[in-house]
């Protein structure tokens, strides 16, 4: 039963894949994943599309057939039964079919929801690299607490190493999205969210802010660059050697509304990310209770 189901979904997904990818290049980046999470999400998209098509294709065909067959013409040979308004068997059938399809989609959804929960660490032999992300008006700040560097509108990390993104906002909320590595997560002030991603191969991937946050929101795109571990280490060394330090004053200036080019910094103000999160906390706020625990956890970990 389960094997049959799998075969069916594989077949269907193959069909959809050829449909969607025929004539298209690698531009459809959600369907051209480069990381484990995004791959699972693509599978899920194909499976659910397949299951949905299972019901809508017959409906579409039936629609065209019925409209064609029963259109009113003088020489029509089709039956006409104006009083026919109920048939329990038929109605049971079409209450049951959607119920079954939705149960199937529901089962798949539940499994994947737990499997792909963004705060769940990835199983991998390498230790994750921590990158702290802050959405600002209208730019992205990436801090590397372990490497003691920071970047703006550019993020680099080693391939095949899990990344633990910790995210917050020091401006209206936004959403952090690198489609080829995995789905997005909101960045909100007063909270530290976590998103675990991994890149399976080196490459430059599109990253963007997905939730509208004001005037120059469209300029909040960045490059996510996955490189080999050596290249990454070299890159860190180079920044440490050549870039200025990010100071508290420098951060204040950066946080002012405005767009920014790609910038790199060596050295971080102490606990800048934690302080940004805590800035919006208050004892009366439910959101901050969670965040207090989170920052506490983080301090223990650090």
């Amino acid at each position, binding site marked *: 039963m389960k094997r049959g189901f799998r075969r069916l979904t594989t077949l269907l997904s193959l069909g959809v894949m050829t449909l969607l990818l025929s004539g298209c290049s690698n531009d459809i980046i959600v369907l051209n994943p480069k990381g484990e999470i995004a791959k699972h999400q693509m599978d899920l998209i194909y499976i659910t599309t397949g299951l949905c098509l299972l019901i809508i294709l017959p409906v579409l065909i039936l629609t065209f057939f019925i409209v064609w067959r029963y259109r009113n013409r003088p020489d029509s040979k089709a039956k006409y039964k104006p009083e026919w308004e109920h048939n329990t068997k038929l109605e049971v059938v079409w209450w049951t079919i959607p119920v079954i399809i939705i149960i199937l989609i529901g089962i798949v*959804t539940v499994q994947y929801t737990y499997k792909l929960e963004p705060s769940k660490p990835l199983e991998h032999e390498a230790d994750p690299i921590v990158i702290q992300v802050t959405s600002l008006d209208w730019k992205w700040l990436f801090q590397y607490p372990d490497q003691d560097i920071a970047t703006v509108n550019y993020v680099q990390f080693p391939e095949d190493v899990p990344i633990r993104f910790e995210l917050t906002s020091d401006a209206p909320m936004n959403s952090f999205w690198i489609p080829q590595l995995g789905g997005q997560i909101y960045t909100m*002030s007063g909270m530290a969210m976590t998103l675990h991603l991994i890149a399976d191969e080196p490459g430059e991937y599109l990253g*963007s802010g997905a939730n509208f946050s004001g005037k120059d929101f*469209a300029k909040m795109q960045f490059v996510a660059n996955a490189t080999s571990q050596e290249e990454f280490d070299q890159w860190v060394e180079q920044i440490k050697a050549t870039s200025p330090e990010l100071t508290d004053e420098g951060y204040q200036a950066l946080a002012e509304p405005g767009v920014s080019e790609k910038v790199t910094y060596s050295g971080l103000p102490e606990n800048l990310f934690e302080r940004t999160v805590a800035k919006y906390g208050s004892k009366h706020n439910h959101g901050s209770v969670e965040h207090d625990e989170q920052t506490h956890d983080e301090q223990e970990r650090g």
Partner: protein
Amino acid sequence: MWDNIKEFASEFFVTGDPLIYGADVAIGLSIVAIVFVMTYFKKWTWLWREWLTTVDHKRIGIMYVIASLLMLFRGGVDALLMRTQLAMPELEFLSPEHYNGIFTTHGVIMILFMAMPLMFGLFNLVVPLQIGARDVAFPFLNSLSFWLFFWGAMLFNVSFVIGGSPDTGWLAYPPLSGIQFSPGVGQDFYIWGIQISGIGSLMTGINFIVTILKMRAPGMKLMKMPMFSWSVLSSSLTIILAFPILTITLALLFIDRYLGAHFFTLDGGGNPMMYINLIWMWGHPEVYIVILPAFGIFSEIVATFSKKRLFGYKSMVFALMAISVTSFFTWAHHFFTMGSGANVNVFFAISTMIIAIPTGVKVFNWLFTMFRGKITIKTPMLWTIGFIPCFVVGGMTGVMLSVAPADFQFHNSYFLIAHFHQVLIGGVAFGYFAALSYWWPKVFGFKLNERLGKWAFWMWGIGFYVCFMPQYVLGLMGMTRRVNTYSWDSGWWELNLVSTIGGFLMGIGFLFQVWQILHSIKHMERDTTGDPWDGRTLEWTIPSPAPAYNFAVIPHVNERDSFWEEKQRRERGLVPDPQPELEPIHMPKNSGIPFIKSFCWFVVGFGFVFDWLWMSIPGVIGIIACMLAHSFNYKTDYYIPVEEIKRTEAAARGSI
């Protein structure tokens, strides 16, 4: 002095954009033209007596329809401006601020000032006739609802030439919409415009629940009621549960902005997340509020034009009710990606998918209504047939979006944009257009031109697919919503250009509709029968256009599709029961209070937008004065004498 005035004017009026100056000129010229025409033909008293003070549900319905078509024009122009800006990469047709204002007003206008009033217009035009009633339950309240909507919409609309449009998205998430990040007046226009018209919507919901429950013709049990009235009932129930949430949410946002409270601010213990939960607790049911009546419309049209009883009536009723209840348990699917955890996401994913079941069942029932029928494809039926594939595909992408972990990739992308336009245009707009052409002869006494109607349909239909199918792909290519521009190397431009072309095709479709209406007014194809489509329900038993009192004698109903069955009996040679004697008809009197009171609300709102208490306080006094005046008014009704009914009926039937 002169410098002061100049400084004030430069802040009060929106300046610095040639498009806005163009709009200023157009608005000025239109006002002058209207005033001139009205004065020249001495039509001001006519306007006041016959329209502004009317409590007749049919006239209120007509005014709703006119207002919503104007809003469709405005929202459509917004859409085309956006699509023009996005047609090619790196265009500078609109500035980012202007673009942000336009997508915000496009969303608000299309949902709240186009779809909602068009829906209320149809409620008003059809429901009392369909259930055999002489009016709605509360005619005065009905007029007040309309004028609150009207002045709320006007308040919202002036923002683009006075003060500046809101620019934080149609649901205005704080903290962006808070005073810290949106210090201008645009956001206050948003709050007051929606608030004033929202109160009107809530009252309409109450009015139609009472009308349907209490005013049905004798013998019309609930399970014998036409499907459109059922859909209005389910939609109205959803309105009265959802709209109070909106009222409170906007009130809290206003208190934050105006009195410096901290419900939703970043600092001082505010929690923007609370707003997002609240606004979607209203916002998600809202989309079902507008789609449910469309389901009712399609049910009526499918049965009429297939010359067959509606298949699975009980299923249909159950499905409507199931949808309106379930719609309240899905709001968190709008923020799956907000880290609420797997348990919460699973709950809302499943509850969202469940809605697909009754919706799917309805599609089967419509199909099997056509099955073994005789399908005549007139314009209303054409919209209905066009709707089915469009809605089925839109429903499928809706289920795909409800799969929480996959939504992490779809959310906020053009995939989502394509999905909701597919259900809102393919479902709601197509449905209401179908309804307009279907009930038009009943309302105005003449049919709309078929040929132009079919052109309009094909332009809309083709334009729709050309516009939105590329957007599904754009979403999967990583294009996010609300971006005002993109770069050449993103690879998005070809599909965006195609999408823009589709948008303009729909614009041409709209022009065909306008042409269709004007052409049909000029070359009237009079409906002398009162029953141009061989209808099945009570509204087709009376003359077109319906007389002020609707039914000279209140009909007695014994079965579903009572008019159809009656016609069948007559065909078999059975003589209908003799009609009882005519009696004088009790009618409500016109009143100017709803208009004046709603205008006072406009004044209050405008005063608060600019923080001018000298303007708001007199407005509040005006509202109270109107309430007092109305509560001491004991002359609210009159009787139409029997002779006059006889004359009217003879004139209407005489032309048969």
